[in-house]
């Protein structure tokens, strides 16, 4: 990586400060909310960009990873674990079997599920208690609860996302084309269904009242009015770190290996690249990015709803990556910031999904290399230059009295 490649990063930091200044000076601080959210969504999109644009593996399940991060974090920081910590084994079994959704199921096989899941849950929670992972808080009714501290929950959520990504990625990444698309799509739908059907994750209501995430000193991730500017910078810096990591990966040996796999997997294999390992690696990394975005966004919003898990969200991420030009991180970042901001501000109204679908169609049909690229500008410049040159020449010749015989035809061109 040479110094010139850091130029966009420097521009990014400059823009971060400039935008903040402009917004603060014009007094339109309400824009910060959507920009901050766009930052987090952009993190998901960067992960997908690495996976789709560089390694050439499609994933239609990234909303799934996002929601694993977000829902795990929300659940761990709002659920009351005191009953599990303090109660006897029998009660734990009962409680654990109860959290899995509807009553009918609970009545059907309470002991078995409770025993299978209860023991590890109790052990895990007990271990967390020993390490002091729990902090007291209050629920919606003002009752005292004992739930995970956000920082502890962060680790558990991210590890869960990584674990699930490994489990899913290992068999699924062996597939290609339609099969891979459908398998990842299926994964997304499974996550969405589980969230919908599980009491622990709030079923159709989602989870609200997620507490603030206190980082160091006065810095905390929350949706409060007072902390809007601070949160804007926190999100910007998290995105910046993710960007730098991605840029280094892309420019390194790993990035070249990924591009080789994209080009031709067999050929890459013959060069000694372990395709499966790289594919799995980048898949897990992109899942991790998605989960990171989910974890922080849920603290920022203070709540999470089922719409975040829907297939439409996954398709939206894909369409942003496609519109940004697949294998250009900066293009994807710009596109993601723009589209997410416009969409979050609600400019599209009820045409949100249709708009993203149209972007996808136009990109795929006409501009597979992205909506905005330097090449397009160069083509336009070249064409206009040629046109002006020809006109100047023609005028010169006309002055000398030479007229083209096929003047009309020439004009048409």
């Amino acid at each position, binding site marked *: 990586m040479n110094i010139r490649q850091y130029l966009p990063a420097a521009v990014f930091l400059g823009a971060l400060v400039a935008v903040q200044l402009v917004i603060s000076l014009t007094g339109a601080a309400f824009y910060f909310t959507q920009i901050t959210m766009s930052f987090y969504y952009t993190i998901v999109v960067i992960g997908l960009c690495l996976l789709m644009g560089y390694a050439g593996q499609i994933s239609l399940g990234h909303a799934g990873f996002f929601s694993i991060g977000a829902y795990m974090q929300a659940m761990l920081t709002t659920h009351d674990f005191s009953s599990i910590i303090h109660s006897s084994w029998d009660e734990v079994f009962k409680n654990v079997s109860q959290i899995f959704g509807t009553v009918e199921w609970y009545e059907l096989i309470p002991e078995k599920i409770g025993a299978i899941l209860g023991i590890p849950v109790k052990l895990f929670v007990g271990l967390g208690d020993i390490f002091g992972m729990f902090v007291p808080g209050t629920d919606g009714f003002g009752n005292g609860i004992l739930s995970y501290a956000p920082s502890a929950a962060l680790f558990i959520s991210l590890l869960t996302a990584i674990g699930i990504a490994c489990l899913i990625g290992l*068999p699924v990444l062996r597939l*290609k*084309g339609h099969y891979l698309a459908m398998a990842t799509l299926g994964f997304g739908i499974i996550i969405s269904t589980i969230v919908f059907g599980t009491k622990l994750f709030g079923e159709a209501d989602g989870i609200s009242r997620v507490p603030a995430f206190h980082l160091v000193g006065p810095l905390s991730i929350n949706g409060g009015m007072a902390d809007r500017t601070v949160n804007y910078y926190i999100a910007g810096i998290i995105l910046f770190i993710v960007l730098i990591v991605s840029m280094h990966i892309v420019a390194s040996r790993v990035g070249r290996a990924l591009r080789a796999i994209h080009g031709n997997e067999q050929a890459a294999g013959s060069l000694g690249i372990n395709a499966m390992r790289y594919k799995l690696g980048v898949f897990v990394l992109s899942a991790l990015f998605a989960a990171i975005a989910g974890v922080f966004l849920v603290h920022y919003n203070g709540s999470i709803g089922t719409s975040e898990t829907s297939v439409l969200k996954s398709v939206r991420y894909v369409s942003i990556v496609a519109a940004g030009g697949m294998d250009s991180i900066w293009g994807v970042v710009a596109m993601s910031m723009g589209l997410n901001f416009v969409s979050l501000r609600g400019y599209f109204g009820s045409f949100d999904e249709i708009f993203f679908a149209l972007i996808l169609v136009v990109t795929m049909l006409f501009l597979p290399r992205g909506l905005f690229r330097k090449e397009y500008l160069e083509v336009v410049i070249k064409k206009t230059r040629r046109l002006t040159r020809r006109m100047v020449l023609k005028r010169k010749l006309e002055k000398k009295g030479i007229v083209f015989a096929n003047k009309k035809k020439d004009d048409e061109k």
Partner: protein
Amino acid sequence: MNVDLFFNYLVIGLTVGAQYAIVAIGFNIIYNTTGIINFAQGDFLILGAMVAISMSSILPIGIAIGVGVLVAAVYGAVVENVFIRRNRSFSPFRSVCIGIIAALLLKTLGIFSFLPEGIDFAAAFLFGLPVGFGLETVFRKYMKEQTVLSLIVLTIAVSILTREIMSHLWDKDAHVLPYFIGDSNTILSLGSISFSPQRIWVLGICALLVIGLYVFFKYTRYGKAMRACSLDHTAAKLCGINVRLMITISFIVSAAIAALAGSVISPLSQTKYDMGSVLAIKGFSVAILGGLGNSFAAVAGGLILGILEAFSVSIFPNAYKDVVAILLLLLILVFKPSGVFGSRQASQLKEF
């Protein structure tokens, strides 16, 4: 679980499975001629049923379903012409197709919403069709060659476009077609098992469809030509088969059968604008279960999945019903991608 309950679940499973089988056959027909998995397959089904439901208030139910099937078939042809086909010479038919899509989008976006209901639809078409002729030039000149990845994404985008258009043309509520015989309380008793006569209709019509398709592919000129396309496009072309026409026909046929199946099952399972994508993934699971491209194994696969789902409700909560199909899909993809009834050698020869 007693015997009566068992048979009740079985009948429910068979009817739902018949629907999956039809979607899967639709997948297979298009896959065979083009190598594309058309993700909008489920939305064709919903579109046909929606049109039939709207028409059933003014037309007899048989004709209403006929109109639904016709509209879905036309829509299938339009989708193929606009999004899949690559044409290098001017085609008026394609211009009309692009115009139809443009008009639907104009109507959906509510450009003419200041005009009264009905007239705005006409205005959208009046304005959209010339736009289509203009856009045809853009499509002709600038449409790029598609890869597998982009075709997947493209059909998914078409699926979302379709469902969003439907949600704006109709609404976001669940609709039902009236029962063909009697109403929701009419019950047919067979010994101790009792079920709605509509289930007989579903099974009967789906069986007829499968038989009809078998005859079509085995004995008719077009059916044979389409089978030839599935083996080798170039060879088919050399034999004087119009491959492009066959591709269009494959979209028409699969949209039409989906619409018919969707209309027949609508009284039992309701029709909502966003049910298409789940149907599509279930249909795909079924198609994979039978081995992609093998239409008649898909029937068996559909019935198996339907029955599995019906019985899963007795063990798992209803909310987890969809998980069964998708878990099945993942398991098959991981352990036997060639399908339970498919041959491994044949699937290895396929490109994707």
